[in-house]
């Protein structure tokens, strides 16, 4: 384990550019040795938040602690953080080895020592023997690894990634994200990882921080965010979701009886009182039957996707999007169905 991995604590951190509020005051704790993603649509302030942690941007308000030390006024070099840039930012006039040892030499290592450590870091990312090349003589994925090695070699308290995979093709993106995750777990690093891709976030994170309009919309484990999103935005951003209106009939203990057309489900009430409410239904929680109890609907569209089939079902609740793994028993557009819901995939949310 890396005993240098440190906790990052943000207290009331905010950033404004003139009139634009890029990040509204927010609190956040990133525990040591975990990988936390900042997830959100473009322009929601992820990069700005990351750059404030890196020390590349001065917060307009608030305090920042790394490993318990107040670093708000410290410059990027004094914070013991490293960053992997979206464009990699490899120095084009230096060889790979020079790139990787750059930070070591900045921190006062001797040339020989720095080169040895840089070689080791290159080996960690699987680039042994590439030291003498120029960055422009490597492929995108290799450049990416050089960038990671360059950041890693400093054994930083926190490692920051800003959309590190967005310049790679889909296939490479998948394997690189696995590598980053494996590396993080092997070395026990604290990592803050910015992405706008929810599947990437789900795949690598210990904790996801969903951002919207310069604010934190919700933070939690991938499972928590997916299974119990707090509001419609988080629910829809974390994967496919149907947003419908229902009504809470009664609340007893932790559960609420929620009426959705002909169905009544027992769901965790999550602090809501009786009356009309917002409900989110995951597509895979929709069960289809030919008859029996349920919501009467009609298949509006059926799309064959190979491994599964996607349906669009017209119901009194509105159109529902459903995913069905059943390959043999496919339904056709126009046929009538009865819809039932698996409570596991249904959540009460705030608007």
């Amino acid at each position, binding site marked *: 384990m890396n005993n240098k991995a440190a906790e990052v604590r943000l207290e009331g951190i905010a950033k404004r550019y003139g009139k634009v509020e890029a990040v509204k005051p927010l609190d956040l704790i990133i525990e040591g040795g975990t990988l936390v993603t900042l997830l959100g649509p*473009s322009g929601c302030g992820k*990069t700005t938040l990351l750059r404030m942690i*890196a*020390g*590349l941007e*001065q917060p307009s308000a608030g305090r920042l602690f790394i490993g318990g030390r107040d670093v*708000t*006024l*410290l*410059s*990027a*070099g*004094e914070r013991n*953080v*490293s*960053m992997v*840039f*979206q*464009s990699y*930012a*490899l*120095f*084009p*006039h230096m060889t790979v080895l020079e790139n990787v040892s*750059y*930070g070591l030499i*900045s*921190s006062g290592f001797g040339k020989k020592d720095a080169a040895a450590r840089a070689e080791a870091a290159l080996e960690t990312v699987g680039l042994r023997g590439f030291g003498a090349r*120029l*960055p*422009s*003589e490597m492929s995108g994925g290799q450049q990416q690894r050089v960038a990671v090695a*360059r*950041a890693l070699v*400093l054994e930083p308290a926190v490692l*920051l990634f800003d*959309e590190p995979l*967005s310049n790679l093709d889909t296939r490479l993106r998948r394997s690189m994200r696995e590598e980053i995750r494996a590396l993080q777990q092997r070395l026990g690093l604290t990592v803050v990882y910015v992405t706008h891709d929810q599947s990437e976030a789900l795949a690598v994170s210990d904790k996801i921080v969903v951002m919207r309009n310069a604010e934190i919309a919700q933070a939690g484990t991938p499972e928590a965010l997916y299974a119990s999103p707090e509001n419609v935005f988080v629910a829809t951003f974390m994967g496919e979701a149907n947003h419908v209106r229902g009504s809470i009939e009664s609340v007893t203990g932790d559960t609420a009886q929620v009426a959705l057309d002909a169905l009544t489900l027992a769901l965790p009430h999550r602090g809501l009182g009786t009356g009309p409410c917002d409900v989110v239904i995951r597509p895979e929680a929709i069960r289809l039957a030919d008859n029996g109890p349920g919501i009467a609907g009609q298949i509006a569209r059926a799309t064959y996707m190979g491994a599964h089939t996607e349906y669009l079902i017209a119901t009194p609740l509105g159109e529902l999007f459903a995913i069905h793994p059943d390959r043999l028993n496919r339904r056709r557009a126009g046929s009538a169905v009865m819809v039932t819901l698996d409570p596991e995939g249904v959540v009460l949310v705030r608007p």
Partner: protein
Amino acid sequence: MFFGSSFFFWMIAALGTLILPWHMQQDGVSLSTLMGLGAEDAEAASTLWQALHFGRFWFWPVIAALALALPGALPFGSACTRGRVLIIAGSFGLLSIIAQGFAIGIQGWNYPFLEAVFGELQDRQFGIGLGGALGFIGFLVLLTDGLALRGYFKGDRFIAGAVGVLIACIVIFTAWPVTTILAQIFTSQGDLGVADAMAARLFDRKIWGLACVTSTANCGVFWNTLVLATSTATAATLLGLCFALIVTRTSFPARRALRLLTVLPIITPPFVIGLGLILIFGRSGVVNQLADSLFGLQLGRWIYGFNGVWLAQVFSFTPTAFLVLIGVVEGISPAMEEASSTLRASRMRTFRAVSLPLMLPGIANAWLVVFIESLADFGNPIVLGGSFGVLSTEIFFAVVGAQQDFGRAAVLAGIMLVIALCAFIIQRVVIGGRSYVSLTGKGDVGLPTPLPTLVRRMAYAIALPWAFLTITVYTMALAGGFVRVWGRDWTPTLSHFKRAFALEWSASGALILSGGAWHSLFTTIKLAAIAAPITAVLGLLAAWVLSRQRFFGRTALEFALMLTFAVPGTVIGVAYILTYNLPPLEITGTAMILIACFVFRNLPVGVRSGVAAMSQLDKSLDEAAVTLRASTFRSLRTVVLPLLKPAIVTALVYAFVRAMTTVSAVIFLVSAQYEMATVFIINRVINGDYGLAIAYCSALIVLMMAAIGLINLLVGSRRLGRRQAAALIGGRA
């Protein structure tokens, strides 16, 4: 690290105030006079000694500020308190240095009210010297360190210091002189009061008169300047456009050679063209002699006056317009023109309806660039103007003439400044901060659309004769150095070169530089070589700070810097002598004033090439360096600078070459000890000694080409391997 720490700069301030002589020493500083503590003479003493031993009480605040700063400069205590201490002590130190400098001059108190308050002063002081300069720099950096410690400038001491130094430079070397010269407008003269003297100067007929409209008399210099600049700009822009179209849009065989034209104005001393024109069209010029001998025609002196100046300026500035317009024409996306032609427009219609309107802002920009150059031009009007006066020459004569009328010079300079600023502001609006003209110029066009036949023929018809004429003028100008007396005695000779650059061996075998030009040549090279790196460093530093750093007041700094670009050389020249011939900064007649002048006249080019180059460098490269724990200075040195080599070369070359060829400001600042090549040449021209002047010019041109080659060799090129563009360019998403 000790070097570069706050304490280091405290030591600098302490060295300047406690030990070194504070004031400027008559014979310069030598090792023996370095010790100002215990000096016999007050003027050779440090502030501490002056205050202790000579009763110069006005230095106590400076010393107090130094003592106050010490706890802040030592690395103990919280950043917050240290920052506060440094800010207070640093600004107190700067203020007391400035206040004492302005309050007490060579005649005691400078202001009567101070005498009223403090009583008569039996003492006086001269301008500040080494100690004063170090003290000032020390306190300045302590102040910026304090600001950085308090979290300003992202808490980065280097950026804080760089901004501090830039602001100090702009204030000391531009804002202050310009204010000084403008203040001269409000002085009294003879027995006229301030208001009357000002009115008399401002509404002078010699400036605003319109006599030439109705009679043959000369108009006021304002109108002369305006008409000249307008017609020069129009002609040069038209010619430049023709050249640009030919080079970029035709298959003219000598396109590359034409491009070389753009280098000419950079390496040409300012009077070569004027001399060439005199040798062709002057009274004993080739054309006049031919006309006389063939047809018995007396062509007279038509070349002296508006005609000649205009012609010379068009020759001089067409390459400038050409350079700007190449970028403009190349910047038009061929896709637009192709789109137009697929919409069934004829080539002519495409040109008129698409290409030309797209070029218009660029053309307007070129026009304004030439307008400003013509306005500020001094070399051509002084050589060819005769009785046709323009603002720049009029300012010169107001200052060096028998009258020594600084009030008048100030008014003229004020008018020039206003015109230049207007043109400059219009230019900013026109180009909207979009395009930067760089000397390198990128050429990555797709498929250029051929010109319509009519336009192509017109461009050829206008540009080619002109190119031929330009070559003729240059040839004549340079040939003039190799004949005995142009127009009268055509015997080939090297005597002019001999007079300029003769070498002799003395009896004892030592080499004697007996030629008349050696002294000024060495001075020029030496000063240009000192000024060029300073210009490049300051310019690139400013470019880096402006394009890479965000801090409070950045826009204001940028605006101030841009404004200094608009001040014409003549105005700077007069402003410098007015400002720096009295304490607190008494550097008139020294090399320092010339170097300062070179640096601040040429800074714009450094800044522009830096900004242009920086905008091509992905910003995350330097950010990466910073997160890799490189200090800001190290990231600048190891990442930004190596990638900026082309811009460095440009800035160095330009600064060096311009320092060797500039005349407008320098002519006011030279002294017997520091004579510059251009001023030496112009004095030969005024005396009618063209041969020597021309010989000198040719030597300068050769020298500058050698210098350009040498600088390229020394700085070297950057190594990036393949795919360099892709690796360099990219942005933050």
